Each structure stands twice: as structure tokens, then as C-alpha cells.
């Protein structure tokens, strides 16, 4: 786990007001609950922990990793100002399709989640929901200094600082904002990492689910969604 300490939410555990029935401080076991939801909606959502499937080894897995790296479907969800740099990738000047990268508008089918810059708390909620709805193995590319340490929004009242405290990140692309060339370089790096079998973010998320969930709940005060959005 990263030891970045400057996220205010983490440095100050009492930063979040904990509603009744919410999990205790970091490390304590978390009871998965859908208690933010109205009674009639509870049955609609998953009430189980994510299970870690993988990492696997062997020839088949190497082949699948190769296929995964050659078929990256980006979740079309622009979260910050950096998302504007994703669009040129589709144009004839940069043409990401030649690397097997294409946009996919639904989290169910996409395999790469691009965090396009700063994430406000409100957006973080949607990021978490979308990330959990993606099918593993799933990869996260975070662009812009805002995702790394908060960037110029470091002391903003309403943005989170380090995205990797909330969801696992595979590749960071630094810059404010990174140019499309940098994005392509980042995607190439992601492909190399996938082929080496190093992108097991979904497994990491499942194994450290309590830690991630506690971090998320610390900043998201109006938690009116299931704990795990299956």
C-alpha cells in the first residue's frame, strides 16, 4: 500500500462524520451493508464481498494477457479536465484504434477506466460504482497530477487527492494536462504491464476491500448506495 500521507481525509480519521452503523476506523472489520438504501431497494443490490479471482499463471494466462493488452476498451467517463485529452486520441492524428484501444460506453464491457484528472467527492462516488461494476481483470489509468497528489486542487474542499487510496491504479500519466502523445505512451506502458501479468488491480481491490471501503466512506458522507456495487 502506498504511504502517501498528505490526503487530509487519511491524516485526520475523524474528518468524516460516521453515521450510525458505519464501519469503525481503519483496519477494523467492515460489515458489508446496504443500509444507506430505502428498505424496498435493498434486495436489488449485491450483499456479498468481491472475491479475488487470480492471479493465474501459465501459457493460457499469458495468451489471455496478450489478448487483454491488445483489446483495451476504455470506459467513456470523463471525470476531470484531463478527459478532454482523450477525445483527440480517436481522431486521425493520434488514432488509438491501431493499438486496439477503443471507447466503450458501459462499465460492464470496458476493461480500462481512465480517471481523467481531479475527482470531486461527488464524482468519486460514481467512480467507485463504475469501477466495481467492471468485470475483472480491469485496469485503471490515472492522468494528470491531480490524480497523483491533488495537483493544483491539493487543498480544495471538495476533491480527493490521491486516487489510489480509493481504487487501485495501474498506470499514472503525469502532467497538467498530459498531451495525447503522453496518453498513448501511458497506454503502451499499460499494455506492457498487462503482458507481464502485473496488472492485478481487481485482485488487489478484493483483497484490500476493507481498506478501500473505509477510505471511500471517509470522504463520501452521503453514502446512499450499496457497499459493493456488483
Amino acid at each position, binding site marked *: 500500500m502506498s504511504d502517501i500521507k498528505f490526503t487530509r481525509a487519511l491524516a485526520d480519521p475523524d474528518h468524516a462524520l460516521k453515521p450510525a452503523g458505519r464501519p469503525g476506523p481503519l483496519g477494523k472489520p467492515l460489515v458489508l451493508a446496504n443500509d444507506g438504501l430505502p428498505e424496498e431497494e435493498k434486495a436489488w443490490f449485491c450483499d456479498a464481498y468481491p*472475491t479475488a*479471482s*487470480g492471479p493465474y499463471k501459465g501459457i493460457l494466462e499469458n*495468451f*489471455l494477457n496478450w*489478448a*487483454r493488452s*491488445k*483489446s483495451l476498451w476504455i470506459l*467513456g467517463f470523463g471525470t476531470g479536465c484531463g478527459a478532454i485529452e482523450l477525445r483527440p486520441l480517436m*481522431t*486521425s492524428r493520434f*488514432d488509438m*484504434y*491501431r493499438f*486496439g484501444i*477503443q*471507447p*466503450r*460506453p*458501459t462499465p*460492464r*464491457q470496458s*476493461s480500462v477506466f481512465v480517471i481523467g484528472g481531479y475527482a470531486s467527492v461527488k464524482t468519486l462516488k460514481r467512480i467507485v460504482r463504475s469501477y466495481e461494476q467492471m*468485470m*475483472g*481483470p480491469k485496469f485503471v489509468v490515472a492522468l494528470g497530477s491531480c490524480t497523483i497528489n491533488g495537483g493544483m486542487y491539493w487543498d480544495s474542499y471538495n476533491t480527493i487527492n490521491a486516487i489510489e487510496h480509493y481504487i487501485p491504479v495501474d498506470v499514472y500519466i503525469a502532467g497538467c494536462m498530459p498531451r495525447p502523445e503522453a496518453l498513448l505512451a501511458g497506454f503502451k506502458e499499460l499494455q506492457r504491464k498487462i503482458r507481464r501479468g502485473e496488472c492485478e488491480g*481487481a485482485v488487489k481491490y478484493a483483497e484490500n476491500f476493507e481498506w478501500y471501503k473505509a477510505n471511500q466512506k471517509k470522504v463520501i458522507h452521503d453514502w446512499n448506495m450499496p457497499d459493493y456495487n*456488483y
Partner: protein
Amino acid sequence: MEPSIPLRIAYAFASLAVITVYGLLLIGSMARISAKVQGRVGQPVWQPFIDIVKSSGKRNSISHGVMFWLGPVFRLAGGVGTYMFVPAVLGSVVFQNFSMSGDLLLVMYFIFFGQLGMALGASEGGHPYSAIGVSRGLAQMTAFEVPFALSIISIAVQYGTLDITKIVMAQQGGFLNWTLFTNPLAVVAAMIAFLGMSGHNPFSVVIAPQEIPIGPPTEYQSNLLGMLQTNRAVFNGAKLVLYMNLFFGGATNVPVMVVKTFLIYFVNIFVGQAFPRFRTDQAIRFFLGVPTLIGIAAVVLFAF
């Protein structure tokens, strides 16, 4: 000599495998051609294969119930069914499929069976965008079916049969015997319906890749999505082979089949790259206008 039943089943599988690979290559090459038109390099021709491997190799998947799971199965059954009752290559033992066992009506039924099954399955997913996609898809399908059915009626009257093999036989002996030249109105109506059936521009609002996330299959993922992608290839191949048989004189060997189906599919890209997208209501009005009139003219011409 009639081949034995096990042999025919083996041939059917071989034929199906060939059309799947061909269909995927066709989708890949058409994407590549579109990219060239837009001044891009474009994805590799084999990208659809990689996508299917990737989708099927996902580690987890979710289901929303039995119907949700059955949707892609119905869709695949529709694709395979359409293909199995059309002779892909006339007179070839391997590629004639089971064309002597079914006629045009059965094939038409299979074309729409898959769509309806998919509509049921997608609705089970509960996603509002699936429902919007399904309603758009069914509305558009109802509209393009009118010119398509009129054109089928016209050629049924023209040849006096619904048996696809007989229709192909009647077109042999020179390209002037093709339906394209003997009944051009029916071909025009059917080709316009074909644009709607293939879902390329200007009739791509059903899948609408950006606005209505991917249309009916919004909730489909992993191996179910892999199944849908495979079916897309089979179904495309089946439709192309059907069109080739009905309107363009069929094929007596595989290279001719490949060239003809490629050119028929190319019409989609040709139109799709030149025209922007219709809204659903515009598409419906379009299909019920001139193409329907052309279809009626084709029927009237041969019925009286």
C-alpha cells in the same frame, strides 16, 4: 449421392466455422476501410478475434436471470439458423448446409427470432438504456421489414417458389439472369432494408455507441458478450449469403461467394461513410416512404 447424417453434421460445423472466420474478417476489414476513409490507420483486420478472446477470457461475469442468459443464446440460434438453411455455395456438398430442408419463410423467421430473443434478454438486464435500445431496435426493425417483406413477396411471385435453392437455380447461366436485372425494383427495396438490418450509418441509432451506451447489450459482458460478438459475424455472413442467393445469382464456388458477399457488405460502408445518422422517427418515416413504394411497385409489376 446424399451424404450420411453424421457427415452432414460435420459439414455443417465446417461450414459454420468458415462463415464465422470469414464474417469476423469481414467486420475487421470493413472497420479498416472506414478508418482509411477517415484518414486513420485503423484497427488490425484481426481485431474482432482478439476482442472475442478478451471478452471470453474475463474472470468474472454476472447474470440477471435465466432470460438474460438466454438472450445471447437465442441470438446465436437466430444467426446459426439463418445460415443453416441457406445454401452458401450452390452445388457444394460442404457449403450447401441444410438448404433443402427449409425455405425462405423459415429463414425470414430466423432473422427476426434472434432480434426478439435478444430484446427479451436485454430487458431482463433491467438497465434503462437497454430498454431504450430495444424499443429503438424493434421500431426500426418493424419499419425496414416492410420493404424487405415486399421485396421477398415480389421475388416469390416472380420465381413462383419460396425454395431458396430453386431461386438460385433460376438465376444461373449469365449475370443477366440475376434478380438484380430481372427484378431491379425488388433488389433496390431489399438493399435499402439491408442498410437498416446491418445497423451501420445512417441507421446506427440502435447501437448508438456514444449516446445510448451500446444499445440493447448494455448489460452484457464477458462470455455472453463474446457470444454476441461471434453471432454478429455469423449473422452478417448469413444475411450476406442470403442476399447473394436471392438477388445476385448465388455462387458456385467459394471465391465467387467471398467476392460477392464482400461487395454486398461494402454497400453498407459506402452509404455509411457518406451519410450521417437518422433519428429513429426519421428512419421509420424513411423506410415507410420511398422504399416501401418501390417494394409495392415491385410486387405490383410481377403480380399483374
